[in-house]
Every structure is written in structure tokens, then in C-alpha cells.
């Protein structure tokens, strides 16, 4: 772990794909960058995904090299498991108040051998696998985590000392305290990404209540080769599903849950998962219930056509409600609009709710930049300066400004880094001019 400096050219908040890209692009231009991530590992949502659309490339194979590059870059310092408590503008630069949460592991000493994790006897549902897999009470977040350092979860730890006894470096510290840091940065890039709308948001869909109504991110983990199951299965009985339904807009374009906008990625991720289900289990039917298929990016329309060719069924219907049968199957009630408006109840044995995207971070009173009514960062000149927030010197990228997919997030991260570089150049020239002026007046 590099020593944290007192002053950086740029501070990047959020270590997902957009944040990492912004940090790399800014550091690549010669600036010193601090990358702050609130989770124990960088990588964000993307490192947990299975494949990316429309190429069906392995997601972690694209993401992990960037994680390693960001972590090992000579001009990037990494602060994981750290919350940003305040971003304040102070003459000519920004001051960030940070809270480094305790891992209960001395980071400088730990060699990431994993013996503590093996010694721990306590199993906990694993957040990385959305509850389907298990982890220990002290655990390295996941196989691709960077840094490969364990974190102790005090809520589930029994403090029996098993980990401490086996640690070869004696670096388990049960008394570790949160640490407050203050750093200065010339500019700030915010890439704090997304979380999904709650599974329970649409009560009539039974998310969180019915075992076989699942989140698309759990589907990603089930489909991942490093996932908890290695293949798709029904949570209720472990059976390979015969008939999977995707309920689109189960958390988007819906005023009743306060998300009136389109989340822009759900059509594509659902089609991607559907194609992969069809490829792995050709006997399994997959049906997408959609309002509109929004396949807008490069190669996306072709991807949609490909899904149809692979036997994915798409049905124009908004699902009205879902009821559970005694055997765990689910009955979806829909109006089949393309059949002249016929009411139908259709049975499936696994249902994926295409949850929407909402901002992961609501920095009201923390960051001086304004948010828009949906909670994303306001971008005053959205057509001409898409990475500029309402505050000069604070730049935004990725889902922090609104729902978008990985390619768009990466483009925007590059834009934010370039804007930050231009801003830093402008500031330094102003400072140089001021210094020259004061020299003249002193003479």
C-alpha cells in the first residue's frame, strides 16, 4: 500500500469500471490520482457480471486487467473500504474528508494468504453472489478482488480468535478503529455508479417473497463460471428451469415507484442472459415480456435479432401481477396486446425481474454539485459537455449522471478525465500568471 499523499491532481470517487477508467485516463496524462472506493475491492458491478453485450465477451476478463492496472499504476493511489464524507471547495482546490473503515486486518502487513478465511468457522450468505453462495465472517471479497486482502465482518464474527491464531503475519487487529483522512485534490471525478431498484418495489410481482422470482444480478452470478452454482437453477429446488420469464421494466418507467425513466440496459442484459440460457439449456424456453425493446447502441439491434434467431420469445405485454403455485412455479398475468388485447395467464418456473438503475450514492450536503430530480448528477450542458457537473472542477462519469451501459460509461469516463486535465491545466496557468503578477508588483 502506497502512502497516501496530502495533495493530488485528481480525486476519483468510485472504483467501478467508470471510476477506474477515469483514474487511468487522468494518470495516463501525467497527473497524480487518488482512487477512492467504499467497498473492500474495486471493480464495481462489472467484475461480478458474466458476459458483456453485444459481444458476449467475458466481463471479468475485461474488468480485471483494468483493476490491476489501476491498482498498480505509479501515479494512482488506491483507497478501498473508504467513504467520502465531504467534498469542499477551498481556495483553488478541493478538500476531501474521508473515512477509512476498519478491515480489522493490518493492510501493510497482510500478504493475502487466505489462512484466516480457511480457519474461520462461520458461514454467511455472500453479498457478491446475492445471497446464493456463502463466505466466511473474515473473507477476501472474491477471487478477482483487488486488493486481495481479507475483511472482517464484525456483525457475523464470533471473535473466537481462530483467524488470529493461524495468521502467519499476526496482522488481525480486532481493535482497529475507523480512520479519518483529509486530502486535497485539484479536481474531482465522481463515478459512483448504480444500485438496482429493490426487488420488493413492485409488490404485485412478489420479488423477495417468491423463491423463484430472482434478480438479474443473481442470474449473472449463476451463469458465471466462477459463480456459486455454475449453471442456472431454481432457488427453490435447484432444478434447471424449463421455462424462464423476464419481466421487463420491473423497476423502470414506472411512476408508482418513483422511477419514471428508462434504465437503458435492461433490454440488452435480459436478451444477453436469455441467449446464454438458450445456449446452455436448449430445452429451456425463455420469454421476455417487454413494453418496448430499446436496442440503441452499436450492434445492439443485430444482437436483438440474434436473440430472436436463438429462439428467445418476446411478448409485448406489461406483466400485471405474478402469483405463486404450490410447486414454486409462477403464473404471470398479462394482456397480449399484439393479439388484439387478450388476457392470458402464463406459467413459468423461473422469473427474472428486470430491475431498474438508481444512483448508488445520494451525496446531498456532501458534494456541492447539484443533483437532478431523479437523484443523478445534473449535467447542465448535456449535449456539449456531458462530463461536467454544475460545479467547475467536479466532473462526473458513468451511471452517476444517469443510467447507461458499460461502453457508454467508459466513453464518459474518458471525457471526464480529459475535462479534468484541461481544467487542471487552466488552473495551473492562472496560478502561474498570478504568481508572475505578484512578482511584478513586488518589483
Amino acid at each position, binding site marked *: 500500500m502506497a502512502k497516501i499523499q496530502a495533495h493530488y491532481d485528481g480525486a476519483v470517487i468510485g472504483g467501478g469500471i467508470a471510476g477506474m477508467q477515469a483514474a487511468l485516463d487522468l494518470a495516463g496524462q501525467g497527473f497524480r490520482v487518488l482512487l477512492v472506493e467504499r467497498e473492500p475491492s474495486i471493480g464495481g458491478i462489472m467484475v461480478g457480471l458474466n458476459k458483456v453485450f453485444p459481444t458476449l465477451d467475458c466481463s471479468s476478463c475485461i474488468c480485471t486487467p483494468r483493476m490491476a492496472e489501476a491498482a498498480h499504476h505509479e501515479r494512482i493511489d488506491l483507497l478501498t473500504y473508504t467513504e467520502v464524507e465531504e467534498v469542499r471547495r477551498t481556495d483553488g482546490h478541493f478538500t476531501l474528508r474521508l473515512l477509512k473503515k476498519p478491515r480489522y486486518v493490518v493492510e501493510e502487513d497482510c500478504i493475502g494468504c487466505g489462512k484466516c478465511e480457511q480457519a474461520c468457522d462461520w458461514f454467511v450468505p455472500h453479498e457478491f453472489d446475492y445471497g446464493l453462495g456463502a463466505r466466511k465472517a473474515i473473507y477476501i471479497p472474491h477471487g478477482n478482488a483487488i486488493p486481495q486482502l481479507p475483511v472482517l465482518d464484525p456483525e457475523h464474527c464470533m471473535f473466537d480468535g481462530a483467524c488470529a491464531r493461524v495468521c502467519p503475519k499476526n496482522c488481525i487487529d480486532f481493535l482497529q478503529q475507523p480512520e479519518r483522512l483529509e486530502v486535497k485534490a485539484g479536481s474531482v471525478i465522481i463515478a459512483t455508479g448504480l444500485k438496482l431498484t429493490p426487488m420488493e418495489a413492485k409488490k404485485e410481482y412478489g420479488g423477495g417473497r417468491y423463491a423463484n422470482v430472482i434478480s438479474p444480478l443473481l442470474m449473472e452470478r449463476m451463469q458465471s463460471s466462477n459463480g456459486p452454482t455454475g449453471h442456472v437453477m431454481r432457488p427453490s429446488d435447484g432444478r434447471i428451469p424449463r421455462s424462464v420469464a423476464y419481466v421487463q421494466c420491473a423497476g423502470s418507467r414506472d411512476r408508482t415507484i418513483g422511477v419514471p425513466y428508462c434504465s437503458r440496459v435492461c433490454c440488452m442484459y435480459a436478451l444477453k442472459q436469455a441467449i446464454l440460457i438458450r445456449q446452455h439449456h436448449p430445452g429451456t424456453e425463455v420469454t421476455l415480456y417487454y413494453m418496448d425493446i430499446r436496442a440503441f447502441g452499436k450492434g445492439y439491434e443485430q444482437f436483438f435479432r440474434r436473440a430472436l434467431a436463438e429462439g428467445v420469445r418476446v411478448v409485448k405485454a406489461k406483466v*400485471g401481477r405474478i402469483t405463486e403455485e404450490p410447486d414454486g412455479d409462477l403464473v404471470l398475468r*398479462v*394482456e397480449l396486446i399484439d393479439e388484439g388485447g387478450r388476457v392470458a395467464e402464463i406459467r413459468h418456473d423461473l422469473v427474472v425481474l428486470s430491475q431498474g438503475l438508481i444512483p448508488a450514492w445520494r451525496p446531498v450536503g456532501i458534494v456541492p454539485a447539484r443533483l437532478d430530480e431523479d437523484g443523478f448528477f445534473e449535467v447542465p450542458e448535456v449535449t456539449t459537455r456531458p462530463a461536467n457537473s454544475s460545479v467547475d472542477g467536479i466532473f462526473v462519469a458513468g451511471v452517476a449522471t444517469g443510467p447507461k451501459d458499460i461502453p457508454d460509461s467508459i466513453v464518459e469516463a474518458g471525457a471526464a478525465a480529459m475535462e479534468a486535465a484541461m481544467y487542471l491545466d487552466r488552473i495551473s496557468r492562472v496560478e502561474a500568471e498570478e504568481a508572475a503578477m505578484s512578482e511584478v508588483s513586488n518589483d
Partner: protein
Amino acid sequence: MSLRVDPALANELKEFGGGTVSRCFNCGNCTAACQLTNQDAVFPRRYIRYIQLGLREKMLGSVDPWLCFYCGDCSETCPREADPGNLMMASRRWLIAAYDWTGLSRLMYRSVRWELVLLFAVAAAVLAWFSLTPGFGFRLLAAHPEARQTVMLQCFAPKDVIHQADVALASVLAALLLSNAARMLYYARKHCQPAPASAWLAALGEFVIQGLTQKRWRQCASGASRHWLRHLLLVFAYGTMFLLVVVFLKWFQVEDASFHWTSLPGYAATLVLLAATLSIMADRRRKRDPIHRHSDVSDWLFVILLFLTSLSGILLHAARILDLPMPAYALYVVHLMIAVPMLVVEVPFGKWSHLLYRPLALYLAEVERRAQRARAAAPAPLAPQPAWGR
């Protein structure tokens, strides 16, 4: 069949309380969320689409809005907050106006002022009838000084005169309502294939049962059965009073201050009417259930007039029993000045017309369902041979 499109139709519906019609993006959530929809009943989405596209003929010919009992499941979950339940309500108002050939209904739904003018005009006519008719009302009372000492209704409003007036009024209103219902029937069947007579006959049961019990309402979401029960009691109480006043007036109108057992069913019915109308007014103020969230002027007038009719009726009864002649006569006039305008305005032109339209719509839907079943069961006609060699 070619379709005529009227782009102004959505704006027209807004005048009937359907202000949210343009919000709908036709996802079909409402139809799927509804407990009453099935293969034969598909609403509200399709009907809202008709409005948005301006398909006046389709709207006129569809009875779908009458199949809705406004439980509000659709409105609770509508992703656009377009309030489809209320759009069905607005469509029912639009249909009532469209069925009415006199144009009065349209006038009243679109302008509160006109509705009030008509109500007051009829009330004034009632007052004039009592004041100006020789040998009746106040002029008859003037000829009988003894009737000012004690209640003697035969010296103010003789029951044979009132009875004749009742029957005359009932006949006119029934003729108006039936002629409007005939138009509804015509529009509904205009573009349908003829249904076999057996379907028309077999579906009659549906008309009678739904007209008497509105039991379809009970299939609505939970909470609807409370509204259904209250409505059923209201219907029966109102029906009782109607029978007592129009058919059995000879026994119901007691002429002097004495008590007569014929008042007993009147007590029961009046009690129910007062309780039910008060409870409806409370619900409309509280706006907790979707069905009470949007109250049009016509919804308020309906329940307020019914309440005032019951109240003035029971006060009239009290004044007669207490032998207060002048208040009793005055209340008699007031009672009729509320009841008659309510009936004249509401039954053929207003909200009350649903007492015929709704069972008729359910009947027509059942006829069409049976006709389609019969058609599906019949052997398919031979396909025409292609004309080879032409």
C-alpha cells in the same frame, strides 16, 4: 370497414373528467391487473387506446366501460399514473352523454352551471305546480281553513292527484331512459355479427341477476365487497321507496297525524338511505379508496340530492306525526322540489342512468360471448375454391 379518426376526442374526454388520458403509453398493465378481465372482457387499455386514437365509433359501440366497477387496482399500479380506473369512469359519463339523444346530458356533464340551472328550473316548476294549480296545493289549502289547524294532506296534495303525477313522471322518465338504452343497444350491435336468438334468450338471466344484485362487483379486489354491500342496500332502499311512492302511494301517504303501519318499510328504507349516503359522502371526502379519489360534480350532486330527499322525507313524516300542519305542507313541497329535479335530471341524463345501462351492458357482453362460443362450435364453412385458370 374504414375508420374515422377524430384527434379532438381525447380533449373531449377531458371535459368529462378524463384529464389523464394522454399520459397512457398503452403497456396493458391495467388490463392484466384487473380482477374482472378475462378472454371476453378486455379493458381498460384497449378502450383508452380508442380514445387516444379518436375512434369515436369504436368507443360508442363498446360496452367495456360498463364492465368496470372501479376497484382501482389498475390505478394503483399504473406505471404512468394515468389513472385508468378514473378514465373508465369518465368514459361512462361520455357514453351516457353519447346515448342521450336530447343533448341535455352532454350539456350538463360539460357545464356545472347548466346542471344547476336545470335542477333549479325543475324545482321551480314543482313550486309553481303547488302554488298556481287551481284546486291543488296552496290554492286548495286556501279553500280549507280547517286544514290549517291540523294536518289534512287531502286538502293540500290529494293522493290521487299525486299518484297520477307520479305515474306520468315515471312514464316520461322511463320513456327517455329506454329510448337512450335503445340507442346504446343499436351502437353496441351495429358492427357485430348477428347473434342467434338462443344467445339473446339464454343471456337474459345475466341481465336480471346483475340488475338486481350487481354481484359481478364482488369479484373485484378486496375492499370492493364493502362498497358492493353498501350499494346493494342503497339500491334496495331506493327501490323500496320508489315502489311505496309511485305504486303504493294510496296506502303509503297517510292523510292525517295518525301513525299507520305502512310507514314501517319507509322507516327502514330511509334509515338505510341516510346512513349509506352519509357514509358515501364521508368516503368521498376522505379519498382513501381509488373509487372515491376523484369526485366529479355529478358524483357529489347525486349523493347530496339523495341525502336531502331522504332527510326532507323523514322531516315531513315527523311534522305530520307531530301534527304541525304548515311545516308539514311546506316540507311536502320542499321534499318534492328536491326529489323531482333529482329524478328528472339524474335518471335519464345523469349518473342514475347506469341502473339500466350497466345490466344492459353486462347482458350484451354475455350475448356476444355466447354468440362467439356458438360460432366457434359450429362447423367451419367450406373454404371457397380458388378460381384456377382465370
